């Protein structure tokens, strides 16, 4: 997990000696089952940033039933489950119901919604076995990834179709998920053309309110898709992939929300030489949301519908300039077509919005000395709300000893406005009074981040990383109050403005230890201090509390052990500090908690794997998010079993 410079290193206490292995024949060596060191993209390992990687094997071993659950395996993210189908996930603070400072990519496709620049985690899914890795970067990534890569980037990458050949079946159930089944088949269409097709269905149980009653958040999800990978020549590779999904989700306030959509993506990469290559990617993504909206301020209950079509094309090229400098540059264009059908109590204007995003970036990596590398780069974007945005970054890495490095970075990132900031109206204008409106002059939020980090191998079986940051924010979202109207003298509508600024600082510390060949330990600690305030002479109805529902500290301790007879036991213990949450301008708190996830797996044979997994085992239920009170949803303990067949 931690990006230690991983080696399959072992010492003299190995139970299988190399001398004994040398006595075996080639066939006998091939019959041995080996423990694998997963391959990780080395370029990323060397990256001067706070990066953690979750491998497909990490996900399998953890028993995580979903991508958000798998993200708990990182130390540099805060993952809070709001209810059965909603998660609040953030890096370096700024958790909120409409969190917006994390960029998430799924196989190169940006998956945040322009409604609020956040991510609907309920619709990010694959057959988890087909995920190659999830890279999680905490800290700004704007220079490469652009607006919204403010506090972090999550990059989900699935395996190439040629690595998912054969039949895979997966089924199980228990308390929550109630039941699930998935099937994938991978084959080959021609000698250098591989494909896979998959489908999965999951049925998830509801959680409970404080009094133990049904929280009305049960849901089911169905998804299918395919991926084709071809290698027409040794230089070229082509990928074509697509997914479609349909979810039905109970909403706590009543009714059922429907979420459906799909995507189609094509990518062509060509290696031009040892040091140069290019890639061209294009995709289409469609999401459809039907959301029951309860009545609010004279407006009756109704239904919000949102249809979003995204068309995106990206080009990238890297090459060596002169004897040293490595250049990476790219151009991108995205067109979104968003159509909202407003509910009485929640509306967006204009209802139809077409937007274009143009972007270009260039990055130069310059080895200053044998052990010192400088990376400078910037992204320049043009969006329809704020025009041009520039997001430069400079990074320095010093490999001061063998497998020991220090790095530092200074970066600027922006969070461009989204529809919620600009276009929202609660309720719509046809009713007596509008309580909340978007800000017509809403600008981009900005960040200047200063980072320092260490990463190194401490002996053959231990590694550690420390990432520190000092983030300076300006023009953060606030809620302003209108002058009292002449009739009722009420301060409505509230509207969004950019009246907050301030700083956050903290660090992420993690360590890996492999005390025995079959036993790995991982520990992590995270500290976050936040000091946001209202700009002098301005107002914020929420008292600078609305954007940061964050715990100050978190600790995780994981153990992964291979027992005899192909049995594996994985435990994940976490402590999350109390979470300050805004309750109309007054700080409320979600209490701190300790909880445990566990998986016991048995590889009966190469074809069959049985496992028993549990989440949140230490409590009947506990809240992870939300304003305390009778309507706060508590996440329940769950245990389920799973059967996996691979042919």
């Amino acid at each position: 997990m931690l990006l230690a410079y991983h080696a399959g290193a072992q010492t003299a206490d190995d139970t299988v000696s190399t001398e004994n292995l040398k006595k075996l024949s080639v066939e006998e060596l091939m019959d041995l089952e080996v423990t694998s060191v997963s391959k990780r993209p080395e370029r990323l390992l060397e990256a001067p940033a706070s990066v953690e990687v979750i491998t497909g094997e990490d996900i399998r071993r953890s028993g995580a039933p979903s991508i958000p659950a798998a993200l708990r395996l990182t130390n540099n993210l805060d993952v809070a489950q709001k209810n059965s189908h909603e998660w609040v996930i953030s890096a370096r603070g700024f958790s909120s119901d409409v969190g917006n400072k994390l960029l998430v990519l799924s196989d190169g496709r940006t998956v945040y919604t322009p409604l609020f620049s956040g991510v609907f985690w309920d619709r990010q899914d694959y057959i988890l076995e087909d995920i190659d890795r999830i890279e999680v970067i905490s800290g700004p990534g704007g220079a490469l990834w652009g607006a919204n890569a403010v506090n972090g980037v999550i990059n989900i990458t699935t395996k190439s179709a040629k690595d998912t050949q054969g039949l895979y079946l997966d089924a199980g159930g228990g308390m929550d998920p109630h039941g699930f089944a998935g099937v994938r088949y991978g084959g080959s269409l021609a000698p250098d053309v591989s494909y896979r097709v998959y489908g999965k269905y999951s049925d998830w149980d509801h959680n409970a309110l404080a009094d133990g009653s049904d929280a009305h958040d049960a849901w089911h999800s169905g998804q299918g898709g395919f991926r084709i990978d071809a290698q027409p020549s040794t230089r070229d590779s082509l990928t074509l992939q697509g997914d479609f999904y349909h979810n039905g989700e109970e909403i706590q306030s009543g009714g059922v929300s429907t979420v459906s959509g799909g995507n189609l993506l094509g990518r062509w990469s060509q290696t031009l030489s040892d040091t140069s290559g290019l890639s061209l990617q294009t995709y289409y993504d469609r999401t459809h949301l039907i959301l029951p909206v309860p009545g609010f301020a004279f407006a009756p209950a109704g239904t919000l519908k949102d249809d979003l079509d995204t068309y995106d094309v990206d080009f990238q090229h890297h090459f060596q300039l002169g004897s040293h400098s490595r250049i990476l540059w790219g151009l991108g264009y995205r067109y979104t077509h968003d159509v909202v059908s407003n509910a009485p109590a929640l509306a967006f204007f204009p209802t139809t919005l077409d937007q274009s995003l143009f972007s270009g970036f260039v990055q130069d990596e310059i080895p200053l000395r044998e052990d010192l590398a400088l990376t400078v780069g910037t992204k320049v974007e043009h969006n329809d709300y704020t025009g041009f945005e520039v997001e430069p970054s400079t990074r320095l890495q010093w490999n001061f000893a063998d497998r020991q490095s220090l790095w530092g970075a200074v970066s600027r990132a922006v969070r461009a406005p989204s529809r919620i900031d600009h276009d929202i109206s609660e309720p719509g204008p046809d009713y007596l009074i509008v309580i909340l409106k978007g800000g017509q002059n809403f600008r981009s939020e900005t960040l200047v981040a200063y980072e320092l980090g260490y990463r190194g191998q401490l002996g053959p079986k231990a590694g550690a990383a420390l990432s520190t940051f000092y983030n300076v924010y300006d023009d953060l979202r606030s809620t302003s109050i209108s002058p009292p109207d002449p009739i009722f003298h009420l301060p409505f509508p509230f509207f969004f403005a950019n009246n907050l600024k301030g700083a956050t600082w903290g660090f992420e510390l993690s360590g890996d230890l492999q005390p025995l060949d079959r036993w790995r330990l991982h520990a992590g600690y995270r500290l976050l201090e936040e000091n946001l305030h209202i700009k002098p002479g301005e107002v914020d109805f929420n008292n600078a509390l609305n954007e940061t529902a964050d715990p100050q500290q978190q600790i995780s301790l994981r153990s992964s052990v291979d027992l005899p007879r192909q049995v594996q036991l994985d435990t994940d213990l976490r402590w999350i500090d109390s979470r300050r949450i805004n309750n109309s301008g007054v700080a409320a708190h979600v209490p701190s908690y300790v909880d445990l996830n566990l998986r016991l797996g048995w590889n009966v044979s190469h074809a069959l794997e049985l496992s028993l997994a549990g989440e949140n085992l230490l409590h009947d239920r506990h809240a992870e998010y939300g304003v305390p009170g009778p309507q706060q949803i508590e996440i329940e303990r769950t245990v389920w079993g799973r059967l996996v067949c691979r042919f």
Partner: protein
Amino acid sequence: MPLLRALALTLLVMAAPLCAAPSEYQVKAVFLFNFSQFVEWPSNAFASPDAPFVIGVVGEDPFGTQLDAAVRGESVAGHPLKVKRYRRAEDVEPCQILFISATELARFDGILSSLDGRSILTVSDIERAAERGAMIQFANQDNHLRLRINVAAAKAAGLTLSSKLLRPAEIVGERQG
């Protein structure tokens, strides 16, 4: 109390007995040693009759101490086995076996072409390495190692592979001779 319960569970895990299985790179190291025994080099591959038999690793070394352990005290026809590590492709010196680490993916073709005409057995676990011109590729199939051998490439370098290697391996490219 919950914290205590959890700690107790973790300690239980720590005390569990562990069973033995080799790591991927421990077995790969032994394979590299085996290659030195099951492949025949032309006599001109060595500078002198007592010159060392060098197994080179280019790029980040994934073996740790395994490779050194596998060749310690061994020799091939009077040539003592020795491991050398080359940080970058430019640093590669004459050797008998060259393991190309996965970190050299981008420079893979360049490394191979720079070795052209020399009697060096090229080995890698980079995907499709055998198709791309490496003589032996380690592939991983359900946690079992497989050998994929490009016989034509070995032959072109003047190397003769024993049937002990060829029989259990997957032959890539045209089978010659």
